[in-house]
């Protein structure tokens, strides 16, 4: 084999390697998914499987080809900020009168089916009416912390509220959807006022709808971390084990407290327990293999094995990690600083258990157990594995968020650290003063929809309703907290303007028939090419198969989603690849018919077919680019696969088949059967 042929073989096999690399996760995912769903009925086996394969499964899942909702079933929702409702809600309730409502109604009529800016139309209508009825925005709206606002100030505030409403709604909705544990939910902002949601595998559409449309609830709770929490955790263990006894059973709990490990922040990581258990001689799980120990720990501590805890006797002392499996509730000091975390991979299971009615019944009346809204991540090696803080809070809120009038991110003038400033109305300020006075040096949790966003320490009594919340790591965190606090001040009303549900049964059946028929029709083309162009057709077939593989792999590589219009794009690209080969072969046949030798016939054939192939592919590529920029979702899906397809077609139909021809020619072939008349090839 000469050097030239070597590079030609490379040209053929390198893309195959790329295809294998890009499609491997997809193959692996479906393999793992099949394994996983075969265990679905056996929760213990499933858990064991998850521990073994969770990482692999997640990686494969992220890199696999995603199917659009039209192919796999699910729910697609477009939400829009209801600006009218927002205007109505931010107006002073007592001053709303018939004139005001009439303006709102006129605005609704004019903007209902158009894309006009609702606030602009409202202001215009309001001014028109104000001119005759002697009205002013000042009658209906107030601006917090501004005693003497102008109309302009109110207008500016309304604009700001409308602009911010979308972020607020986005935050509230993402949190709820995450809590609902919809796998692979896609939530994104579209333009300035819309949110798109794609939710595969939705079980209950009604639940999602109410989830999206109920307004957020912001509460301030006193934090009470301590032994009652640990008692509750053990009680949940007992419940899950099936024990109804008061005392946790089994001798393992009676083992003395010897298992503390030197504290470092890293001991919080959820692997700490297994290591601890192995190292300790008084450990009932000592001497067992890691897998076996883990299996037994999970059986004995079905709830607490998910939790890691640290303790310090007072705020100044350093934290010590402790092991739930080696203690019983009474071993834990009553006073001191506790901190509990649950690993990211366990958090949905943790929350699901907490939501169970039988677990709820176990809870002490004055205690609520909540989880942080965002995972924390450690620096360093295990940065991928985040964990959530677990908070014990007083069951009744100290204050609800509707007293918050304004919240915004800012900077502390002294140290330039990001902070959040929060204002309350006079009623709230009064109660806030007494709450803060009673809880100095204690934590107050800021809870939105049942998740803790921040639990700042109270540093002193706050008399005037203006609080400064510090301790934010960066401005991003400060922005988030401000958004959350504002959700208490202003409900961001959203309405569903588009909703599509594809039932899983329809999706499944469609995709099966779609795939079978596509394979069949592809096979038909392959066969046709082989019969019509013989050897040449065989080469083209190899290129065609490669073409389809490359398009699909390309889609996986770009993280694209395969939808029905996307399949249309692939069909078009494949048709163009077939056509490119036909163009080339017809040209080679023409050249051969003129009596040219194989080598120059092939050369001429490719050279003459090239301009037509190039122009038609570029034309389609240009239209694909236009569609990507101007088209809506489904049309974009078509355009993406078309563009990938066109690029791959140029490669496979022209470069790849040429390389195959050249290899044959340089290996001494003097004629290639292209299905032409025998006389012509002589």
């Amino acid at each position, binding site marked *: 084999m000469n050097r030239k042929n070597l590079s030609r073989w490379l040209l053929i096999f390198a893309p195959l390697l790329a295809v294998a690399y890009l499609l491997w996760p997809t193959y692996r995912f479906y393999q793992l998914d099949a394994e996983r769903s075969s265990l679905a009925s056996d929760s213990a086996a499933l858990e064991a499987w998850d521990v073994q394969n969770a990482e692999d499964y997640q990686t494969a899942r992220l890199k696999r080809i995603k199917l659009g909702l039209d192919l796999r079933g699910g729910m697609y929702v477009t939400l829009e900020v209801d600006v009218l409702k927002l205007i109505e809600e931010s107006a002073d309730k007592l001053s709303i009168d018939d004139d005001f409502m009439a303006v709102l109604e006129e605005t609704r009529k004019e903007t209902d089916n158009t894309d006009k800016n609702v606030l602009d139309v409202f202001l215009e209508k309001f001014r028109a009416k104000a001119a005759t009825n002697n009205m002013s925005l000042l009658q209906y709206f107030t601006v917090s912390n501004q005693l003497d606002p102008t109309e302009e100030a109110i207008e500016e505030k309304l604009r700001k509220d409308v602009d911010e409403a979308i972020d607020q709604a986005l935050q509230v909705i993402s949190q709820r959807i995450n809590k609902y544990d919809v796998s692979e939910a896609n939530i994104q902002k579209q333009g300035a006022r819309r949110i798109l949601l794609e939710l595969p595998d939705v079980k209950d559409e009604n639940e999602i709808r109410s989830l999206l449309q109920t307004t957020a609830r912001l509460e301030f709770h006193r934090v009470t971390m301590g032994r009652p929490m640990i008692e509750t955790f053990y009680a949940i263990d007992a419940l899950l084990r099936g024990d109804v006894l008061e005392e946790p059973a089994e001798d393992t709990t009676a083992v003395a407290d010897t298992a503390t490990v030197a504290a470092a922040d890293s001991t919080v990581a959820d692997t700490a327990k297994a290591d601890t258990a192995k190292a300790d001689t008084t450990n009932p799980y000592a001497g067992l293999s890691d897998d076996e120990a883990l299996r037994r720990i999970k059986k004995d501590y079905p709830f607490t094995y998910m939790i890691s805890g640290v303790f310090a006797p007072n705020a100044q002392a350093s934290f010590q990690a402790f092991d739930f499996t080696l203690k019983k509730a009474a071993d834990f000091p009553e006073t001191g600083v506790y901190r509990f975390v649950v690993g990211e991979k366990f958090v949905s299971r943790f929350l699901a258990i907490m939501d169970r009615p039988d677990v709820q019944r176990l809870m002490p009346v004055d205690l609520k157990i909540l989880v942080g809204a965002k995972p924390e991540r450690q620096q360093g090696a295990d940065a991928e594995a985040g964990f959530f803080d677990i908070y014990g809070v007083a069951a009744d809120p100290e204050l609800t968020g509707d007293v918050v009038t304004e919240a915004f991110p800012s900077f502390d003038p002294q140290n330039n650290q990001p902070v959040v400033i929060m204002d309350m109305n006079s009623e709230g300020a009064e109660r806030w003063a007494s709450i803060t006075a009673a809880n100095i040096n204690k934590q107050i949790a800021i809870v939105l929809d049942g998740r803790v966003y921040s639990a700042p320490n109270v540093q002193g009594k706050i008399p005037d309703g203006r609080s400064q919340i510090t301790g934010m790591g960066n401005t991003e965190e400060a922005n988030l907290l401000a958004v959350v606090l504002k959700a208490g001040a202003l409900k961001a009303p959203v309405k569903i303007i588009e909703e599509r549900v594809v039932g899983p049964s329809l999706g499944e059946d469609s995709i099966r028939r779609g795939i079978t028929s596509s394979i069949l029709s592809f096979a038909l083309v392959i066969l046709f090419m082989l019969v019509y162009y013989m050897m040449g057709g065989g080469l083209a077939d190899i290129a065609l198969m490669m073409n389809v593989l490359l398009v699909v792999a390309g889609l996986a590589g770009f993280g694209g989603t395969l939808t029905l219009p996307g399949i249309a794009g692939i069909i078009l690209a494949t048709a163009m690849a*077939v*056509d490119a080969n036909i163009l080339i072969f017809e040209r080679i046949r023409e050249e051969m018919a003129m009596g040219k030798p194989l080598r120059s016939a092939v050369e001429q054939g490719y050279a003459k077919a090239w301009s037509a192939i190039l122009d038609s592919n570029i034309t389609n590529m240009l239209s694909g680019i236009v569609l990507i920029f101007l088209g809506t979702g489904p049309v974009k899906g078509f355009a993406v696969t078309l563009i990938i397809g066109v690029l791959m077609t140029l490669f496979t139909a022209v470069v790849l088949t040429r390389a195959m021809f050249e290899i044959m020619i340089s290996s001494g072939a003097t004629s290639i059967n292209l299905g032409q008349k025998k006389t012509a090839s002589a």
Partner: protein
Amino acid sequence: MDLIKKTNIDFVSNRNRFFTISFGLIVAGLLAVVFTFNSSSDLGIDFTGGTQVTIKFEKASVSTDEVRTSLTSMGYAGAELKSFGNDGEYLIRVGATGKATEVSQEIVASLQEAFPADEVTLLGADNVEVKISNELAYQSALALAVALVVMLLYIAFRFQELVYGLGAIVALLHDVLLAFIVSVLFNKTGLLNLEININAIAAYLTIIGYSINDKVVVFDRIRENREKHKGMGLADLINLSINETLSRTIITGVSVLGALLVLVFFGGDVLEGFAFTMFAGIVIGTYSSIWIASSFVIWYTDRVKHKRIGTVHTSPAK
């Protein structure tokens, strides 16, 4: 195999006859479409707005009339009701109400209540407010128009004459209009669900893509022959080029049509309508590649630019 021998057929002399046929078909077809148009069955929910619910009675024990009666008692007397696919499957459509999400829920719940002996499964639901559907229609039209203009410019640039761009676009419009007419009229047979929705738009885009490819191939031959046979009249040049590319035009067309036919018959709910529209479009596109696109170039050069185009000289095929 070599099905299509070297040909020498006069494709362009009768161009006026084919223009007339095509024009007549488009006019008659559009009239037929306009007079029989039923926006609620021909246009998909994507473009009308409203609510569309697809349900299945698991035991298929409920008749169409019973479902209709039940819908009327719910206050949806004007609802469109279609039964399609398997027994017991119904598609129900009502106009936009401004309360998109409540309607589909209500329909499913009320039907379950009305027919407790059977089990109602929701196969799919679409709730689209008019606002969204207007935007979708506008955006699709805009994207299509810009894409066509870009193609026109590119072809005019590559073939050095505006007339080629025009010819391609006229032929594309011809293909899309006829494919549209065929699919709207065929939709009325109820054999396939061919309503114009966002997926159908993807089918029309595919027709455009295929068809432009076809036209470019013929134009490319004209460009090549223009250099090779200097002094040949335009009509002869074009006729020669169509003949030379004929075998490729037909072979490619046949192989793609064969593949689409499989999808029409076995593609299932999702692909069949889609494939049907493409099938019709590609048949039409192949016809227009031979008889319309290049003939338009001759016609335009002759009538609009008043240039000599010559007459076609054909000799018997070898």
